[in-house]
């Protein structure tokens, strides 16, 4: 029986090389809200700039930025990669980063002052590294799927999110809320969209050949302090 299933999957997979789907959509937020105020850096202004934008809820028109859209479970294809995060002007760039498990994250600091990058991870090895100015990069592998909050213990406003996914099929919504997950093997999937303060929405989706549309409307969700 097992053999038969394997054979069947292989049979399906061969045409899959030329036969793959793409999920395209947008994350939206149309509720009325007061954009979170930028943070004044006070005595750090020469090192950080006067203000740091608060990136916990960024909406342009109806588009919601920094939503991580990913597919649940194991899906074949794709490879772990190498990603970069920078501590620059006392914020993390990018603010939200998604990567497939077993990927590496290279952490850099461009700032002239100390930062202490601290990940609140449990499934993955936590990081807690003091960066002094001009220090070498630090590379960390993320082994398990997990949503990880990143903070600097020295500058309370510095926050980032690392979303480690089970497979290679994920995207982070852009300035207009748009995202694209290409080259997906056909099949039925659970698609989850996660936002750091609004929470997550899941839906079932069937992917065949060509483009499937999937929009996520977060308007009914109430912003929370943290959605981890």
């Amino acid at each position, binding site marked *: 029986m097992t053999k038969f299933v394997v054979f069947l999957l292989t049979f399906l997979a061969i045409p899959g090389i030329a036969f793959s789907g793409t999920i395209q959509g947008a994350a939206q937020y149309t509720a009325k809200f007061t954009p979170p105020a930028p943070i004044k850096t*006070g*005595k*750090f*202004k*020469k*090192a950080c700039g006067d203000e740091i934008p608060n990136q916990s809820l960024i909406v342009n028109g109806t588009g919601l930025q920094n939503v991580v859209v990913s597919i649940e479970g194991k899906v074949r294809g794709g490879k772990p990669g190498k990603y970069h995060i920078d501590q620059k002007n006392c914020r993390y760039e990018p603010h939200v980063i998604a990567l497939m498990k077993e990927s590496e994250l290279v952490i850099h600091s461009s700032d*002239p*002052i*100390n930062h*202490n990058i*601290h990940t609140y991870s*449990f*499934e993955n*090895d*936590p*990081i*807690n*590294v*003091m*960066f*002094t100015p001009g*220090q*070498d990069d630090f590379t960390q592998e993320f*082994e398990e799927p997990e949503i990880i909050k990143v903070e600097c*213990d*020295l500058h*309370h406003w510095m926050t980032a999110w690392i979303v480690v996914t089970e497979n290679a099929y994920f995207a982070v919504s852009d300035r207009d809320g748009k995202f694209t997950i290409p080259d997906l093997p056909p099949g039925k999937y659970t698609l989850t969209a996660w936002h750091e303060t609004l929470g997550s929405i899941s839906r079932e989706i069937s992917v065949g050949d060509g483009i499937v549309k999937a929009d996520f409307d977060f308007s009914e969700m109430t912003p929370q302090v943290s959605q981890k």
Partner: protein
Amino acid sequence: MEKQTFSLKNLRNPFTRAAKSPEKALQEGATVYFKHCVFCHGDLLDGSGVFGDRFFPKPASFIHEGSFINKPEGYGFWRVLKGGKGLPKPYSPWNSAMPAWEGQLTVDEVWKVLLFIQTTARERLADKANTPSEPSEDLGKKIYQDKCVHCHGATGEGDGVITPFSSPRPRDLSKGHIKLRTTPFGKVPTDDDLFLAITHGMKGTTMPPWGHLSETERWGLVAYIKTLSPKFEKFEKKNKSHTIITVPEPPPLTLESIARGKDLFIKNCSGCHGVKGRNDGVSTRKIVNIPTDALWPRNLSKPWTFRRGVSRKQIYLTLRTGLSGTAMPRFSERVFNDAKVWDIVHYVQTLSLSQKPEVSRQIRIRRTDGTLPENPEDPVWKTVPSYFFPVGGQIMYSEKSFFPTTDNVYLKALHNGDEIAFLVEWDDPKMDPFLSNLIPVKESPPPPLPPELQVDEGEPQVESHPKPQKFSDSVALQFPAAEEQNGDLPNFLNGDADHPVNLWKWDSYPFAATELNARGLQNWNEQDKPSQNLKFKASYEYGRYSVVFVRKLKTPDTRQDVQFASGAKVPVAVNVWNGSEGETGTRKAVSSWFEALLE
């Protein structure tokens, strides 16, 4: 609860013999023990629980032939139900911190916990002839389920019976991280690290040292614990190897090294540990969250609380490895070469007392001429001997304080034949903001920036009417009320109905020092205005409160007020509340009685 009368003679534990399932009773007894008794009597039943060194007489050890386990069963039953209060007069009534458990535990619970203590203590005392010679996962599992499960839980997730009452919480072994390792921050520990963690325990926490288990048993535990987290299996599957941090020989200690260390400490450590090391740094408020087990940074002025130990090599290893699961980062070689780390180690050692002050149950109050120092900053106080008062959580009666932030108070006192002054000092990393304009305040500044990045923001703005925190930070000195001074010593927990105490209580909000009388934990009364005769001054410096109380030796209220006289002995105890951590009312830290002798 209905009143029941027992004849102690010939009283038998109903769960020892006839019970259908002694195993179940034993387990339930263990649950009672780990919810109520472990904090003083300890995980190992040897009287060395978290608060084992805070109260006098010391909590009883059950691991000796003379303990209640070999006495008639009615004896243990009576001691638990009646507690220290129930002791007959010749046995220092009132002094023991053992609560009376009648009304708190059911009769069945008492018998079950006695069964658990008796069974466990006898096992410990028995010869261990049958220990297997080979460590194995199975052996480890057996010991784990018997000994470790109460705290670390059935699957190792740190969710045992004790968890709600323990801070830090028991380690979640399913995540594969332990605090003290020789591997870098966030990496799995070596087998030796696990073995040592079991052997030495974690000082100051509910994790005791398990060195009395045989090596075979401890290695068995290591083997089993490694199965509780997938990290170890994965580590082996991927053929990874440990990066082990070794400690080089320390260089000679020099004044130059300490000076360099100070500079490094202020730049890199004071953000959390504060400039004097009393964990009052500007970042701590953001980091600490006790309900999520985000702990206070170590108070470096109290080296006896260092988890790993106080030797230079031990501090070096903590700096190099960081403490997994906490905000303590590791100081990697890429940034801090060995010389720099040793410099920091040398400076850290200057922040602390060289050893834990001895506890003297009798304190001497010197007589001086002239006026008494009413200011905490008065240099006269520097010449007065300081007495160390251990304080522990009020865990005797509800509502209880299982993990107070205060573990000791320093007390100094002077008198001049007319007045008496007490200086009470204790560490509290967060000052009630209400005090900002009321008392002299020095708070740890943020770590300095390089000169080219500094901004002149002017003097920091202090709000003119800062809001108080929800609960007041408070301290109280306790004495027997005058009417009791020649009679029985009142119970150390604020006396009782027949034996009142007199309390001098200082509050951050409303900002005042008040004279009270109490007849038990719940029954407190402020004295009338004309009887309020306390003068006081307070200050806060880098995580430490100092409060001076001054009063006449004698007052007109010779019934409610404590009365002092040259040559007299007066019992004294302290209560402390850390309001920002939710301590109020009976949730507080308390000391046993001490005796003050006025010269």
